[in-house]
Structures are given as structure tokens and as C-alpha cells.
């Protein structure tokens, strides 16, 4: 990897520390490093070749079955192929599973990767691997400065940022497991919106003044705060005074509250009934619509966490109810992005932590299976109407174009103009590659 050499030129471990001098306790480090990251990424030619400005990552927590979604196996024995028939799609020769009707109808906008695999068969580890691109850390001793790899969303937030003071990484309705910033610092933690945007009283939490409080009263609170805030500030950077960060974020918070653009991004009630209906009048549907609004306002990364895909029992009964509204929302999101002229610059990715076992178990379910999984990509200049890789005839294992979680996250980074091979620094000053194998999935890069 010549890359590691070009990247580390002239940088020593302690230069990382030097840049964050004094930030180790107080938190100035991530700020200093991100300033450098911005400076370097602006000059990086890769940034100019970004294929997308934003990514909406739909996370099917628990691990969706590849058989019942994008990788049907009609020729397998019944205990493997399951209850669903394959259906034809818009793309000649490509079949999806029976419930995926709306996505099948727009398959020329989609790229399905059927051959990502890894070796982490439990949820926590699988989440960690797919969400960060780094294998789960072995259980070593806890202690000072244990740090894990930052998630996709946090890295994107750090590298790209968002305008109007808006946080650059949202996660709805909760942070996905291992979806945090880790050593990048709190600044890049996801902004979590736990409430359902399908509720008539929905508001994004914390970004507007509390209900029942008049604007006048809020203004007077600001004035009181200004008056009573008498704590000394130490502006000499070598002191590393953490109050300076509090001031900075207070200013950013006020900017969010007072910015029309920011507030519009949060206000789903501005959408017409027609659009809201198209996404589905349910929590997930409206979350997807909110994600589109956030992306439209310049947010580069939104995770839509969708739980309940761990179908150890009664998988078909459960998916009969679960898949149709889910896939309809994804299809609506893609169609709407296309209509708004945003699909070209917005990457939509749908996946969970792994696929599911070939043989249907005694409880009518499928268990964890990381030897094969299907991942859907759309937008962000991803060539549509294609399937990348394949599993064997019975869906046991990825056998063609076998790809890794590293390839998966590298694809997202590369599309967003972020160099997946770049070096990052932990608070200890330890350098680490953003992705150890920085090879994106070529077929998706156009």
C-alpha cells in the first residue's frame, strides 16, 4: 500500500498530539484535527470527484434475510427457498423475492450486491463491522483511552459537515449500535430524533425553543444568560480551556434555532399530503421523508434505523406484514429523490448486519448467517439495473465477487469524496487507516 506512505509523510505520532495540544482532556483535539481534515480535504482532488453529497443509510437491524428480499433461490429445495416466489423486475434477467414489488418496478435505478460476507455472526459484532468497516475489537482490557473505530456517519460528519449550524449526522429514531463517533469526539455523534414524524405534533427534539415558551421569553433568557455568565475565559490556546468549546456550540445552537433554512429542514409539516402519503403514513415512511428534507438542507448523512429483522421464528408471517410497507417507503424515497433531482447526488443504501440461514429452522424462522447478505444501493451515480456478485445455487455463501465490509464502507466513502485510505488519529495520537482495505466496489462507482 503505497497509500500509507504518501499519507504519513512527515507526520509523526506526536504531531497528531501537537495539533491537539491540550485537547486531550478538554476536547480540543477533534476540533483541531477536523480543521486540518477540512483544509486537506478541500485540496484533495478526490473531493472534487465526489459522486454524491449525501447518504441515507437504511439499517435493517437484526439482519434481513437475503432469500426473502434480493436473492431468491427458486431452484433450491423448499426448506431453503421458503414460501415466496421470485418475481421479475424492470431489469431483464434479475429477480427479487415476491414481496419486493415496488422496488422490482424501479430496479433499473438500483444496484444489488449479493456477495458481501464477513465472519461475525452475532448482532453486536456484525453491527460493528458493517457500521464502521473495522472488525470488532477483540475483548482486551478496558482502561484509559480505549477507543473504537468511528462509524460511517460520524466520519462523514467530520469530513463533510453541514451548513446553518445543523448537525451533520442524524440517526432516526435512535443511534444504531456502534453508530457513534468514538475517538472523533462528541461533535460527530449522531443527532438522534426519537419521536415519530408521523405524529401530528411532531417536532425535531431540542432544535426549537420549548413549546409553551414565547419567543420573547426565550430572548430574555438569552439576555439573562449573557448577564450572569461571568466565568473567566482563557483565550490562550495553550491553556486548552473547555469553556471556549461551550461558547462555540452555544453560538451554533443559536444559529440552528434562528436559521430559517435549518428550521425548514426539520419541519415535515411543510410537505404536501400527497408527498406524505406517498412515503407511507407510518413512522418509518415519515422518517424517510424527513431524511430527504435533511439531505435537501445539506445534511450529508442520515441513518434510518428500522428494527425487528431478527426473524428466528415465523419469518414468513412476519415478513408478510413487514416487507410491503418497508419496501414501498424505500421505493417512494428513491422516486421522490429522482423527481426532486436529488437522486444523482444522494446515495441510498439498504442493509442489515448479515443475511440469514439457508435452512428454515424448526420454528419457521431463519437464524444469523454472515456468509452471505444482500445490500441495495441507489443514487449517487450508482449504475442501476445491475446485480454485483452472486451466492451459490442455494444461497449458502457468496461465491462470485466476494466482497467485504471494508469494500462496502469504502464504496460509501469514495462516493462521498472521502479517501477511505486516509490516516486518522486517536486521542493517543495513534494513527489508524480509515479503512484497512480501501478498495471500493468498482461496479458501483460508474
Amino acid at each position, binding site marked *: 500500500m503505497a497509500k*500509507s*506512505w504518501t499519507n504519513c509523510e512527515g507526520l*509523526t*505520532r*506526536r504531531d497528531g*498530539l*501537537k495539533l491537539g495540544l491540550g485537547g*486531550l*482532556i*478538554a*476536547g*480540543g483535539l*477533534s476540533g483541531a484535527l477536523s480543521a486540518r481534515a477540512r483544509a486537506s480535504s478541500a485540496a484533495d482532488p478526490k473531493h472534487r470527484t465526489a459522486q454524491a453529497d449525501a447518504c441515507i443509510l437504511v439499517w435493517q437491524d437484526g439482519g434481513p434475510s437475503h432469500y426473502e428480499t434480493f436473492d431468491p433461490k427458486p431452484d433450491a429445495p423448499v426448506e431453503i427457498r421458503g414460501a415466496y416466489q421470485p418475481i421479475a423486475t424492470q431489469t431483464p434477467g434479475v429477480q427479487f423475492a415476491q414481496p419486493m414489488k415496488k422496488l422490482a418496478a424501479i430496479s433499473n435505478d438500483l444496484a444489488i450486491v449479493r456477495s458481501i460476507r464477513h*465472519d461475525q455472526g*452475532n*448482532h*453486536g*459484532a456484525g453491527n460493528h463491522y458493517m457500521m464502521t468497516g473495522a*472488525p470488532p*475489537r*477483540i*475483548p482486551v*482490557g*478496558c482502561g*484509559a*483511552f*480505549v*477507543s*473504537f473505530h468511528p462509524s460511517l456517519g460520524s466520519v462523514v460528519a467530520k469530513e463533510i459537515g453541514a451548513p446553518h449550524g445543523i448537525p451533520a449526522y442524524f440517526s432516526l429514531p435512535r443511534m444504531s449500535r*456502534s453508530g457513534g463517533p468514538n475517538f472523533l*469526539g*462528541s461533535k460527530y*455523534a449522531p*443527532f*438522534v430524533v*426519537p419521536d415519530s414524524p408521523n405524529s401530528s405534533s411532531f417536532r425535531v*427534539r*431540542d432544535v426549537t425553543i420549548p413549546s*409553551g415558551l414565547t419567543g420573547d421569553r426565550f430572548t430574555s*433568557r438569552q439576555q*439573562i*444568560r449573557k*448577564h*450572569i455568565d461571568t*466565568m*473567566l475565559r*482563557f483565550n490562550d490556546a*495553550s491553556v486548552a*480551556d*473547555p469553556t471556549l468549546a*461551550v461558547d462555540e*456550540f452555544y453560538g*451554533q*445552537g443559536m444559529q*440552528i*434555532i434562528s436559521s430559517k433554512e435549518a428550521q425548514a429542514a426539520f419541519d415535515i409539516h411543510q410537505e404536501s399530503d400527497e408527498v406524505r402519503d406517498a412515503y407511507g403514513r407510518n413512522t418509518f415512511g415519515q422518517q424517510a421523508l424527513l431524511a430527504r428534507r435533511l439531505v435537501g438542507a445539506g445534511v450529508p448523512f442520515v441513518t434510518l434505523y428500522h428494527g425487528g429483522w431478527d426473524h428466528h421464528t415465523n419469518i414468513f408471517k412476519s415478513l408478510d406484514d413487514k416487507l410491503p410497507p418497508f419496501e414501498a417507503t424505500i421505493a417512494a424515497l428513491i422516486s421522490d429523490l429522482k423527481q426532486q433531482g436529488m437522486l444523482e447526488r444522494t446515495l441510498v443504501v439498504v442493509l442489515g448486519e448479515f443475511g440469514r440461514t439457508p435452512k428454515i429452522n424448526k420454528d419457521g424462522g431463519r437464524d444469523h448467517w454472515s456468509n452471505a447478505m444482500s445490500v441495495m444501493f441507489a443514487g449517487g451515480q450508482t449504475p442501476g439495473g445491475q446485480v454485483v456478485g452472486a451466492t451459490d445455487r442455494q444461497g449458502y455463501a457468496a461465491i462470485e465477487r466476494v466482497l467485504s465490509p471494508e469494500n462496502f464502507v469504502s464504496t460509501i466513502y469514495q462516493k462521498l469524496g472521502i479517501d477511505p485510505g486516509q490516516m486518522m488519529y486517536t486521542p*493517543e*495520537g*495513534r*494513527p489508524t487507516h480509515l479503512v484497512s482495505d480501501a478498495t471500493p466496489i468498482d461496479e458501483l462507482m460508474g
Partner: protein
Amino acid sequence: MPDRLDTRLSHCRVVMSALMLVAFCSVVSHGEDLPHQNAAAGDAISFELDVQPILAAQGCNAGACHGKQRGQNGFQLSLLGFDSDFDHDAIARQARGRRLSIASPESSLLLQKATAELPHGGGRKIEVGSDAYHTLLAWIRQGAPRRLADEPVLESVELKQTEFALTPSGTAELSTVATYSDATTRDVTKMTSYLSNDAAIVQVDSTGRLKAGPVPGETAVMARYMNHIRVANVSIPRTEALPDGFYDDLPRANFIDDLVYEKLSQLQIRVSEPASDAIFLRRVYTDVIGRLPSAQEAQLFLDSQDSNKREQLVDHLLEQPEYVDHWANQWADLLRPNPYRVGIKAVLNYDNWIRQQFRENVSHDEFARRLITAKGSTWHNGAATLFRDRRSPDEVATLVSQLFLGVRLDCAKCHHHPFEKWSQHDFYSFAAFFGKVGRKGTGLSPPISGGEEIVYVSTKGDVRHPVTEEVLPPAPLFGTIDLAEDDDPREALVDWMVSADNPYFAAVQVNRVWAQLMGRGIVDPVDDLRSTNPPSNPALLDALAEHFQQSGYDQKQLIKTIVLSNVYATRSTPNESNAGDRLNYSRHYRHRLRAEVLAEAVANATETSESFSALAPQSRSNQVWTHRIESVFLDTFGRPDPNQDPPCERIADSSVTQTLHLMNSREIDGRIRSDSGRAARLAGSELSAAEIVTELYLAIFSRRPTADEQRYCESLITAAGEQRRGAIEDLMWAMMNAPEFIIQN
């Protein structure tokens, strides 16, 4: 999981690669200087003594290059050349010997790659015609022997000078000498790798030249030559001297002040002014029991004229129930396992056990003993969960050595520790103390792992060296132990750990407690005690460790000694001499309150409590026993992710999400404006506006208002008339959103 060991090995290599990468990226090629003088003249070239140093100096065997696991493009060397047999085999035999061409040495792949005559990912490392080139060439021409007859062995490496005092921007030269078994020596200065622990203070280049930065400070520089490591200490005192006798006239509370002042005096740094009673009060409450003083508690302390009132306060705090939860909460960060993997019941029992130890105020040696020798059911003895969580001798060994000895053995699992003396043999001999830990019952079955497991002492259980496969008897990292056949080896291990002859056990714990109270460890990171990471004040660390040992490892005594020192009670305000000091405690280092402490402060300020699932009503945030218990507040202000193994990473900095949460969150707004909260109580009371303002300042800022603040706030409340509750709420909101509330001053 057949590939589990592989994963582990690769992790280890990855970590080390990263470390090694930096260690060598800055090493630029300097082929002219060679230890072996007469390469061109036909002297026999030694692989170990001549060739390996070239590969090391050029970074060929660094973790980022051929030293990483699986090597680079099929060519793998041992990390930093710790295994010469392996490396000789890789160079001379593997790839069907095509890396060397004895018949035509110049066309050897090794040379053509190193000189970039053939495309080489690492670029040109050696110039054609340089001394290094000629050495390699001569070695190949001589048949590339593994060893020479009567070849001496490298025995030691020394720096001629290890203590340097430089002026700002001043320079000095390191000089490194290698001594061999035949009593010969060589100057290996330019074949040695150097790394400054703080390049802002002093930089070191590949020739061993030190260059001080523009500001005063101190740091260590590591020198490594073929697995031998030496450390030089460099200090750059301030050039403007302090007034004569400055430190002689300062009052001292105990030995901490003596030792910190002595160091500051050497560096010519003036300590900041003493903190006021109010600052001390807030600091000691949040540090020792993790909450704010109530208005009454604050008033009592501030009004007291007793000259001994700080000591009385500290004694009082150490007996509060919040002490237990505050310190148990910090230990839980170190021990708490992933609940998805280990099971929620085991996690609860473990948490209860940790709290029980602090409730009983067991000494630290007893704490270690109960944990490390734990036996029985994970449903009855929470400490046994350690062995449910860490399932193999090597996993337990790394945890125990890091937490209780400050020795990080992770690296030595896979290869000779590159910054340390520990070998694989040392590591697996240490791990062998846990070889007889038996487990029965129901093991792990993520994501629920609900079963009960029994930990017992088995009659057998061997730990083998992973390479030689030799069975290793339990052996401590240094010194000796007595171990009878039937003993639980863990008992002997704890005896050795806690004995007065073991300096690590006390040192790592005093350093940890010191860091929690003072904002930075004397050694940093706190549990990484090694010669290449020296303490900023060795005498202080030693004295604290000795004090801790003499007190019978009594944590309360240790805390008391630290917080009653004048050094603890220094202002955060810098002076012209100490703004840049981040190592020597010449001022208090401000920090944002930990998530649980800030959550508790909100509860204290508003007189309301957050309600947690799986906990009794009115529970405090530091009683939360698993991070699976939901709390938007704690997530926002940073706590470990329960999905991680181990879930112990904390982020201590600030974010806009935190600001917005304090400003606008419905929950916090609801608590400020609650009918059963402080604002409602005060508004409905007989208290005057003046009394209300005083109470708010005492309760929220732990101080009295200044005359100006008193006047201003009173006027707000008075002007509101009948609506005074709203004015009080607004004032509380303003105070809770000010840095004075969020940052410990």
C-alpha cells in the same frame, strides 16, 4: 470460531502496525552511515548485526510495511526484526529464493526493490552505491549466510547521555552505543530510530539530533536499536527565572505540595493562586461524590470560620452514600462487560459486587484479591463475571495486568513488545496463572447469554507458548513466587501483585485516582506504566504509591491526601509562566463534568429526578447499572456504547447536541418548570427576592452572588411581581446553560 485466534493476532499486528508506522515514517533514508565499517573491503557480513539494522533503519520491517501480518505483497518480515530466523528464511528461502541471486547479486530482488530499480510500493529506501547498498551486496555475494562463525551477540545498547536541559530552540546530539558479547562496541547513533513523546516540545531527527521547540516544557525521547530501547529525558526550563525564594515562602499542606513545587521550581513555573472556598467546594463535591452541594451545604461551608473546615468537609463527603456510587461508576467503566455477550443478569451481579466493595470500603488489595481469585456462580458472586467475560488465560491476563499493574501486555501476545521488555514468554507465563480457571454451566450465547456459569479451580490447565508450544509454568513478570501444586495459582499471583516489593500495583492505582481528581495522570495514559512513557513527576508518583501502601491501600485516605493538598486547591486561572503547562499541575485543569455528574447536577438544581427504567424511583444517574438503560441525557453527554467490547469508551468533550439539549429539551424544560421543582417551591414560598437569588446561586453555582449579580437578579424577580415563578425559571435556565454550570472550574 476457528478463526478467532487469527483475528486476535491480526488485531495485535494492526495496532502495532499503526504504532510502528509512525515510528518509521519520519525516518528518512541515510544510507551512508553504517555500523560495520569495512563492508566494501571484504569483511564477513553478519545478517543479524549488519543486515537487520539496515532493514530496521529503513523501516522495511515496520508495521506499515513488510512487518505487518501477512507482510506486504507476499514478503513478510518479523515486526522490527525481532525474529532473525524468520526474516532470514523470508529473504533467503521463500519465494523460491528469488529475492536473492547469489550468482548475480546486483540483480537480487531485495536490492532492486530497495533501490526502486524495480517498482516498489515503499519507494526508494537505499541509494545504489551507498554503504548500506554495499553491505547488502557483500552479504549476498558471500552467500547470504544466516550466521558467521563466532559471531558475537548484541548485548546492550546505551545512550551516552540521558538527561538534557535545553534552551528554547536549542539543540543537542544523542549518541547511541551498542555493546556486543565479544566486548566490542559500535557507535550505532545513525542506525537507531528515535521518537519524541511530544514533538511540540522537542523534535528528534533520524541522526539523533534534538531540537527544542520555542516553548518551555519537558518530554522524553525514545531510542530503539534492534529491540533495545533507551529513553532520554529532555527539559526546556523557562528562561525567565522566578524571584528568589518564591517557593520557599509558599505554604505546604503535605508531601504532594513539596514534590510538585520542587518540580515547578526546576522549570521556573509559578503556581497559580489558591482557589477560593467556593471553587474548592464545588470541585471537591463533584470530584469526590459526583454531585453539587445543596444550598444549605454550601452555605454552611462558606460561612464556617473553622480553620479546619476543608478537612472536615472532606471527611464528611467520604462518608456519603454518593461516594460509593460515584467511584463504583468509574470502576464499572473499567470492568463492565458487554451485556449482549455476557448476559444482563451477570452484568447486574457484577455491578452490584463493585458497588458493594465501595460500600464496605474494602482496601484496594482486597478488591483486587476478591476479583482476581473469584469463584462460584455468576448468579451469586458478581466478581465471577470477570471469568465469564474474559474466557481464556490470555484474555484475563491482559485485563489484570493493565488494570492492576499498568502493564500492557497485549502486544507481547503476538510478538516482542516493541516499546517494552516483555516477551511472548513473559506474557504466556503470566497468563498461566489463569490456566486452572475452570468453568461449568451455561457459557455465552449472544445476544442473550442468560445462563448461569460456575467458576472453579480446576486441577489441570496448561498454557503453552504459541510458537514453541512449550508448557509454561505460572511466573510473574519479575521476581519470584512460591507455588505449591495444589494451590490456586491466582492466590499466589495476588500475593505477588500486592506485596510491598511490587511497585506497579500501588503506582497504577494512585495514578488513576490522581488523574480523576487532577485532570491528568502523572503517567498518561493512566494505565500504561513503562520506561518509554515516563511519569511527569517520578518522585511524586513514588511518594503517592508509598503513601497508599502504608495506608494499607486505603482509597479514602488517598483521596483525602490529594484533595487536601494545596496543589489540588489551585485556581484554574493561568499566569504568564504556566499557560502552557499541561503536565505539572501548576494550575487546575478545567474539564466538562462527566455525563452522570452533570445529570445529577441538573437534578440538584431543579430538585427533580430523571426516571430510569430498571431502577427504583429517585435513583441517581450514577446508579445506572448498564448502559442499556435508556437516557437521552447520558447518551448526549457521552457514555460507553453497550454494544462495544469492552463498553468502556467515554467521550468527554462538548457538542452542539449537548448545548441544544440543555437549552431546549422538553424533559429539562419540564423539570425547570415542574410544579414540584425548585422554581415552583421558591415562587410559592415566603422568601424575598434577595433570599431566592442567594439560594439559586448557592444551589446552582455553589457560591454567593456578587453584589452586581444580586442586584440584577433581584430586579428580575421583583419586576415580575406575581409572575415571579416565570422569572425564577428563566434565571435557572440561564444559569444551567452557562459554562459555570457545565465546566468544573
